[in-house]
């Protein structure tokens, strides 16, 4: 019955995080929670074949996993107090019982929803190393296996397994609480969670070649997590802003590189190939977020992304708007990289000289020394103003600093273009030059 396999696959994607989250709360044991969740999904395959797919797969899986946990704890003769606790929790949550067929499975899930939020916030606790936060989020919340996560982050499986073990040990031993943070910590911790999801997305977004497909899957996982978070925290405009940002970026993901794996700039991308439905959803989410009147860095970045995505042609891009948005972003994120992006937008809106002046300012401050996009930006503005010799010099400087192969190939291509433009110019001037030299 392929339908059952399909149902289990769907349930895994939809319910894994929730089942694990509830089991962690009930047992207080992360490893046991994962084991029992896995076991419940394995059982589902058999039992659903025999009895049919339950009306509420999530409830069935949670109950099955919890019963399994009770069995294990009983066998290990864990203190009677703990057993009572688990049993009481089981009784207190009648909505989990599969035989409870009343209702449509919506509306009475608040406890479960809280569990998933608890899990998100605990996985992203700032006392954990950022790499551990990412790995733990993918494992416990998204249900990726350890080998999958290891491949996505290009580390050996044993390293990733060790990272997960250490993270769980620290949560237990250091007393990191399993909860949604109280109000006074919530804004800061929410920012931390959004940061982990955005990092996840960027890991996937940076992947270009076909061999890195496993990494591009991270974009989908990040969007899925952002959707869960947006459902759980619908009143947080920055959460909506992040989801909007990811969708808008993702709508253009496939045109970022050509078949050869080379980077394609925004102005050269085939706009008809952008995912319109994804872009529209992102734009609508952004508008809903902005209506709440509490702007933040993700909403502003989404707005910038929307300016690009919704321009019918590259020439129609509203660079003045984008420049203003980067100015706004710099207020929230006082970073030189943000100001460099603003310089690009100002260069496009007001003319290359204005952009070059801002780049020069940043170069003088020295914060971006060693960052290849500083000379690359300068080079691009010089190229646009026709100063090919200076542009070539700046591209050479950028090439000394660049690390990513796709970017290197892009800069080399640009450098070659500058050279040929320059040699056409010098070539035309060759004869008179010779005269002068005599």
């Amino acid at each position, binding site marked *: 019955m392929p339908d059952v396999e399909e149902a289990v696959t769907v349930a895994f994607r939809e319910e894994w995080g929730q089942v694990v989250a509830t089991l962690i709360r009930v047992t207080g044991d992360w490893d046991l929670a994962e084991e029992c969740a896995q076991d419940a999904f394995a059982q589902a395959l058999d039992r659903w074949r025999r009895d049919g797919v339950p009306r509420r797969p999530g409830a069935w899986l949670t109950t099955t996993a919890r019963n399994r946990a009770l069995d294990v704890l009983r066998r290990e003769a864990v203190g009677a107090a703990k057993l009572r606790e688990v049993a009481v929790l089981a009784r207190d949550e009648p909505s989990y019982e599969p035989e409870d067929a009343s209702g449509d499975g919506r509306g009475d899930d608040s406890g479960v929803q809280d569990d998933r939020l608890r899990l998100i916030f605990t996985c992203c606790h700032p006392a954990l190393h950022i790499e551990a936060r990412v790995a733990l989020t993918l494992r416990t919340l998204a249900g990726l296996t350890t080998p999958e996560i290891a491949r996505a982050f290009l580390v050996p499986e044993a390293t990733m397994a060790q990272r997960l073990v250490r993270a769980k040990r620290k949560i237990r031993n250091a*007393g990191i609480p399993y909860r949604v943070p109280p109000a006074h910590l919530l804004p800061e911790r929410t920012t931390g969670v959004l940061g982990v999801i955005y990092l996840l997305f960027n890991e996937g977004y940076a992947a270009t070649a076909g061999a890195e497909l496993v990494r591009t899957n991270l974009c989908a996982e990040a969007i899925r997590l952002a959707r869960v978070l947006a459902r759980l925290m619908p009143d947080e405009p920055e959460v909506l802003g992040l989801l909007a940002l990811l969708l808008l970026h993702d709508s253009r993901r496939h045109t970022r590189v050509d078949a050869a794996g080379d980077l394609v700039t925004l102005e050269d991308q085939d706009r008809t190939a952008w995912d319109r439905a994804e872009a529209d959803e992102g734009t609508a989410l952004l508008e809903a977020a902005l209506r709440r009147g509490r702007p933040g860095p993700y909403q502003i970045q989404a707005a910038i992304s929307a300016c690009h995505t919704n321009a019918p042609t590259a020439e129609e891009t509203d660079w003045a708007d984008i420049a203003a948005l980067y100015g706004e972003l710099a207020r929230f994120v006082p970073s030189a990289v943000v100001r460099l992006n603003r310089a690009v937008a100002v260069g496009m809106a007001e003319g290359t000289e204005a952009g070059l002046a801002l780049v020069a300012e940043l170069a003088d401050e020295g914060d971006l020394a060693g960052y290849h996009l500083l000379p690359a930006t300068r080079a691009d503005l010089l190229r646009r103003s026709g100063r090919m010799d200076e542009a070539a010099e700046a591209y050479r400087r950028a090439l000394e600093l660049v690390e990513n192969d796709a970017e290197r190939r892009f800069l080399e291509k640009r450098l070659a273009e500058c050279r040929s433009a320059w040699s056409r110019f010098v070539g035309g001037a060759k004869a008179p030059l010779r005269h002068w030299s005599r």
Partner: protein
Amino acid sequence: MKYVLFICTPADGEELSPEEIAEDPRFTSYIDEVRSRDIVKGGARLRPHTDATTVRVQGDEVLLSDGPFVESKEYVAGIDIIEVADLDEAIALASRHPAALGGGSVEVRPVWE
């Protein structure tokens, strides 16, 4: 849970006398808070790292060296043993310690119980 806070201070920072500390509002407000909440279960202020002696044993020989085992820009200037609900509470307290506010740091270490 019990935690030990290692109060770390810059090696080249100012050294306040106990009397100065007793009158320094940065310290008095912190001390008042932890006293009123009865969360500090013990602790001590330590002499600077330059007064430390490091003891090692090789075979049956006791080796002493002047100073701390690890030279660094900070030294452990004191410890507090605290009892609070969880790491978030421990971090909240550590972040209000004058050392954390004044260029030093506070390391939070769970007590192995």
